């Protein structure tokens, strides 16, 4: 009897030894992101997301690797092309870059799992490719006009409500030896936001038509916008050496009150409202409409600021991926962010400047994604190169745009 009891006990112990590790098995998700989880204000959201998600989901271990920029983009590109060494989840701005990965069959379709997660339509649109949803975008960046309120007040200037007024205000600032706009065009991409707005204000959503090859990139609206841009450059609105200033220099010009306006993304809200970074009073406004133009003030340029997509290697851990994505889109996680514009409903903007940017985002009826993220990768660098030529006073901007159109024809097909 004792022997039988002993054998039974041993069998039970053996079963427990075998079963317990299985039941207590940790799921591991590898997440590649941009920001460090060091608790700095700029990285507060990611820090809180990783820490709190793990605390609330003890069965999942997050192996978060911060790769920065361009590290994240470079590494993702290579691993996606190789099809091996992929993370489970990676940070992305969505758009055509993410779409390319989806076309290559590297991403996991999460439409059924995340389709009902509340969030702004624009953010969801950025993470959607060919009708399939591949991730979430808890934060959205929009381009607008950062205005030095102190300079405007001291000079009796109002916020421009039309492009004409914009020009008048810039002339007045120039006359008082204040640089109207900070830009940082030495880095090439910073000049894009203004060009997108000017083109939209001249021709409405002409970009979507050009991207769909129903209009040319040297169409009237593109050319007029480029000519106006070049005229502003010639008038010195961007300083004497706009091509010698990097994006960091542009920030310094705003931070020290040497420039009065900066047309850039709302990601700068945290910086421009930080007393550690600037002692200037800075506001955020929508880019104005144009008299006789087609694009209304409610056409907003922008794209995902922080987004996550999942790869196919995580297919066996889909449930854990969905839990992570849903938590990333939760009010709890998004509340930790001190500066970005949230696309999660009900999240209160953390600063007055972000509130202003959120209000502008709230008025958006059409959101046009960054062209250099939404066109095929083969033409995005030449696009920014083309915009840089507008900063050279003697450039024939129409010829530059025609050259770009020829490249677009080669890579995207001819206009139908």
């Amino acid at each position: 009897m004792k022997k039988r009891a002993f054998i039974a006990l041993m069998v039970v112990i053996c079963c427990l030894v075998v079963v317990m590790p299985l039941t207590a098995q940790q799921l591991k998700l590898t997440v590649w992101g941009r920001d460090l989880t060091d608790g700095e204000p700029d990285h507060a959201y990611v820090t809180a997301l990783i820490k709190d998600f793990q605390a609330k989901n003890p069965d999942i271990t997050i192996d978060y690797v911060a790769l920065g920029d361009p590290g994240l983009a470079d590494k993702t590109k290579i691993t996606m092309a190789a099809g091996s060494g992929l993370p489970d989840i990676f940070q992305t701005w969505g758009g055509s870059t993410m779409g390319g990965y989806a076309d290559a069959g590297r991403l996991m379709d999460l439409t059924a799992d995340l389709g009902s997660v509340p969030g702004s339509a624009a953010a969801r649109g950025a993470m959607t490719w060919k009708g399939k949803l591949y991730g979430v975008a808890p934060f959205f960046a929009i381009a607008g006009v950062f205005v030095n309120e102190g300079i405007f007040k001291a000079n009796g200037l109002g916020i421009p409500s039309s492009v004409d007024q914009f020009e008048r205000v810039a002339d007045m600032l120039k006359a008082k030896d204040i640089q109207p706009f900070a830009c940082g065009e030495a880095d090439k991409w910073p000049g894009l936001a203004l060009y997108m707005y000017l083109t939209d204000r001249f021709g409405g959503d002409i970009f979507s038509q050009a991207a769909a090859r129903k209009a040319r990139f040297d169409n009237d609206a593109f050319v007029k916008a480029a000519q106006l841009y070049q005229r502003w450059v010639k008038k010195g609105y961007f300083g004497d050496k706009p091509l010698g200033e990097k994006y960091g220099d542009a920030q310094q010009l705003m931070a020290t009150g040497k420039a009065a306006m900066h047309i850039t993304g709302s990601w700068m809200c945290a910086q421009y409202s930080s007393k550690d970074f600037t002692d200037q009073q800075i506001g955020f406004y929508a880019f104005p409409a144009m008299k006789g133009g087609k694009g209304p003030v409610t056409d907003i340029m922008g794209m995902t600021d922080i987004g996550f997509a999942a790869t196919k290697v995580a297919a066996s851990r889909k449930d854990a991926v969905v839990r992570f994505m849903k938590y990333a889109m939760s009010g709890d996680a998004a509340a930790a962010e001190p500066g970005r514009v949230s696309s999660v409903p009900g999240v209160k903007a953390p600063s007055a400047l972000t509130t202003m940017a959120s209000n502008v985002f709230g008025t958006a009826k059409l959101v046009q994604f960054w062209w250099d993220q939404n066109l095929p990768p083969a033409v995005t660098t030449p696009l920014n190169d083309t915009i840089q030529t507008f900063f050279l006073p003697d450039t024939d901007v129409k010829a530059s745009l025609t050259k770009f159109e020829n490249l677009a024809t080669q890579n995207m097909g001819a206009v139908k």
Partner: protein
Amino acid sequence: MSTLSPGIGGGRQPRGSRVNVPAAIVTIILIVLALAVIVPLFLPLLFVFKTRLEYSYNPWSLPRQIRWDNFVQAWKVIQLGKGMVNTLIVCLGAIACTVPPAACAGYIFARYRSRMTEVIFYVILAGYFVPLQMVLLPLYRMSVGLHLADTLPGVFLPMAAFGISFWTLIYRSFFRSLPCELAEAARIDGAGHWGTFFLIMLPLAGPATVLAVLLVFMSAWSDYLLSLIMISSQALFTMQLRVAQFLNAYGVDHMPRYSAAAIISAAPTLILYILGHRWILRGTLAGALKG
């Protein structure tokens, strides 16, 4: 009696003597070129002790106060200790896999010359002209296939593959500059091929070996792209990856802290250069680039 040109021999120039214009122009050009190299090295020191606001207003002025906060923050975030061990493994691995094969190959190509060895030499040399970026994708695929991806050997083995061709060229030139009589004398004294190489020729190639060790170390220390692509686990991140994480996170927004990280990351190679510059110069001048 011949007259010395101005300045030569340290003699005092007679009054009213003409300035040596070509020498002055060359000197000015050299000073400008030297400044172009030296000034960027010193610029971070101008920024690193400032707050962000102080930097915004007075980037080019001397700091009002010496603050070490930026170094402390950079040091903490980079987690130097963790990255240092990985980087040392990569550096030592790169040296071990580059220098001995390159020395052996260089010796063979210098001393046992035939049509066959010449062809093989030029085939190896061709590898020197292949940029890393061009082969990054197939290299990564191959590493995954060999289970070398996300390992430290996965970083230093490709480094060695890219380095061997260059160092073979250097060793070959160096060995060719050594007198043949030394090897022949060793042979007469009964030394075999290996004995001649290890006991006679390799010690004579000391300056080239020191040069190779130092420069392979510096290049492995500074590597970013290969490490970025090959390593995915944070635990295996090298110094440069950790510094890049930091720089990418604070770059344009926080120049003083960025400068601190740049100084920390550059310090070991700068110190190594200062300590070993005599060897580097000797190695370069002692025939390493001749022939």
